[in-house]
C-alpha cells in the first residue's frame, strides 16, 4: 500500500493562485474575508509544516509511547474544543474527555487486534488523528443537541420527574435524539461516499500513485473504523453528560441565573 511522490515547494506556491482567486472573490463581492483568508493561509502553512516535521520525528523514532503521548494530546485538545460547542451542558469537559479517549482507545485497539493495521507510528498517528477528530465532531454535535433539547424541553422533563421518574428516565428520549444527531452525519456521508464525494484518504492515495483497489479498500477500512468511533464517542458523551443536568435528588438543575416563573396567566 505504500506509494511515494515528491511535492515541491514550488508546486505549493503555484497553488496559492487559487487563494488569490478566493481573496479576489471576497473583495469583489464585499464578503470582507480577505484578512481571514490570509490568516487561514498562513496558519495552515505553519501548522501543517510543523505537524509534518513532528510526524516525521515520530515516524523515525517509532516509539509507541511517543504515539500514545501524541494521541493523548489530541484527545485533550479535542475535548477542550468540543466543550466550546456544548456550552449549555454543565460539566461537559469530563464526559467529552472520556468519550474521546474511549473512542480512540477502543477503535484503534480493535483494528490493531484484528490485524487490520500494525501497531506502528506510521498507522496509529494518522488513523488516530482521524478517529479522534471524527469522535470530537460527533460528541460535540451530540452534546450541543443535548443542551438545546434540555433547554427546550424543561417543562416536559420536569413533568416527567414529577411522576417520580429518575433524571435518566426523564431524559431518555432526548438522549436518544442527541446520540442520533451525533452519528447521523457520518452515517449519511458513508451512504453517499463515492457517489457525491470522494473521501480524502482515497483521493490522497490515488494522487500518491496507489492502485484504485488499494485506495478503495483502505478508505473502506477507515470509514468503518470511523463509524465505530463516532458511535462510541456519542454514546459515552451523552450517557455521562446528561447526568449533569440533574441533582442527586433527581431535580433538573436551574440554568445559570434564571428564575423559575410560571407562564403569565
Amino acid at each position, binding site marked *: 500500500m505504500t506509494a511515494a511522490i515528491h511535492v515541491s515547494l514550488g508546486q505549493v506556491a503555484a497553488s496559492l493562485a487559487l487563494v488569490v482567486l478566493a481573496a479576489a472573490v471576497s473583495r469583489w463581492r464585499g464578503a470582507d474575508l480577505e484578512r481571514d483568508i490570509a490568516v487561514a493561509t498562513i496558519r495552515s502553512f505553519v501548522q501543517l509544516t510543523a505537524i509534518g516535521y513532528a510526524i516525521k520525528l515520530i515516524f523515525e523514532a517509532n516509539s509507541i509511547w511517543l504515539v500514545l503521548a501524541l494521541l493523548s494530546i489530541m484527545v485533550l485538545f479535542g475535548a477542550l474544543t468540543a466543550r466550546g460547542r456544548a456550552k449549555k451542558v454543565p460539566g461537559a469537559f469530563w464526559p467529552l474527555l472520556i468519550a474521546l479517549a474511549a473512542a480512540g482507545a477502543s477503535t484503534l485497539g480493535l483494528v490493531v487486534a484484528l490485524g487490520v493495521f500494525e501497531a506502528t507510528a506510521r498507522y496509529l498517528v494518522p488513523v488516530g488523528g482521524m478517529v479522534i477528530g471524527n469522535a470530537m465532531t460527533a460528541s460535540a454535535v451530540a452534546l450541543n443537541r443535548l443542551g438545546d433539547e434540555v433547554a427546550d424541553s424543561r417543562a416536559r422533563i*420536569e413533568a416527567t*420527574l*414529577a*411522576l*417520580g421518574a429518575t433524571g435518566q428516565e426523564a431524559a431518555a428520549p432526548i438522549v436518544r435524539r442527541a446520540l442520533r444527531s451525533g452519528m447521523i452525519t457520518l452515517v449519511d456521508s458513508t451512504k453517499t461516499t463515492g457517489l457525491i464525494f470522494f473521501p480524502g484518504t482515497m483521493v490522497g492515495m490515488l494522487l500518491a500513485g496507489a492502485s484504485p483497489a488499494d485506495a478503495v479498500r483502505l478508505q473502506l477500512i477507515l470509514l468503518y473504523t470511523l463509524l465505530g468511533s463516532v458511535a462510541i464517542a456519542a454514546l459515552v458523551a451523552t450517557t455521562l453528560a446528561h447526568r449533569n443536568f440533574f441533582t442527586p435528588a433527581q431535580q433538573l438543575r*436551574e440554568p445559570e441565573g434564571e428564575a*423559575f416563573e410560571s407562564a403569565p396567566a
Partner: protein
Amino acid sequence: MLFELRDVSLDRGGRRVLDAVDAEIPAGAAAIVGPSGSGKSTLLRLLNRLADPDAGTISYRGRPLPDYDPLALRREVSLVPQLPALLEGTVESNLLYAARLAGREPEVERCLRLAGLAAAYAGRDVLRLSVGEQQRAMLGRALAQQPRVLLLDEPTSALDEAARDAIEATLAELRRELDISVVLVSHDPEQARRLSDWVVRLEEGRAVAAGPLETVLA
C-alpha cells in the same frame, strides 16, 4: 398537618422568590393564591421536591421532605404543571408510563373517567388534543399513580370559561370520589373560593395570610 413550612426562602437569579414563608397546609382542599410573580408556582414545586429551598424546612406528614426518597415522594405527592407536557405517544401510553413508575395496576378507563375524558381518548395521539384535553390527560396521568396528594398549578389558566368550569367540576367530583388531598395554585381568589377550604396567600414571596377560607378570603 399535611405540609408545614418554616422560614422557607429561595433565591433565583439574584432575586428573592420566597422570603421566610411560614405556613401550614392541612389535608383536604387547599389553595395557594396571590398575584403573578408572588412565588406560588415556586412554592408548589418545593412540596414534592422538584426544587429545594435555600433556607428553612418543609415537612410532609410530620417528617422533613429530605427524609423521603424523592422518587417515592413524587409518586405520592403528584404535581400537575400549569402547561401540559405529555410524553410523545398516545394518552394511554402516558397513563401506563405513570402507572408503571408508581408500581400500580393500570386502570386507564377509570383514570380517564375521573379526569373527565371518555374511554375513546385512550388511543388518541397527544399531539392531536386541545389544550383542555391535554390538561385532563395530565390529570388522568397523575391519577394513574394513585397519589395521596395532588398539586395542581393553575389547572385552568390556559382554558376558556366553559372548559374551566368543566375542570372545576371534575376536581370537585374527584374530591368526592377519592380520598385525596389537593393543593391548588391559582391567581384567581374566586377559584380558590369555589374549590378549597384552606388558603395560603402569597405577596412578593411572603405568606401574608394562611388559614381557613372564610378567615383569609373573607
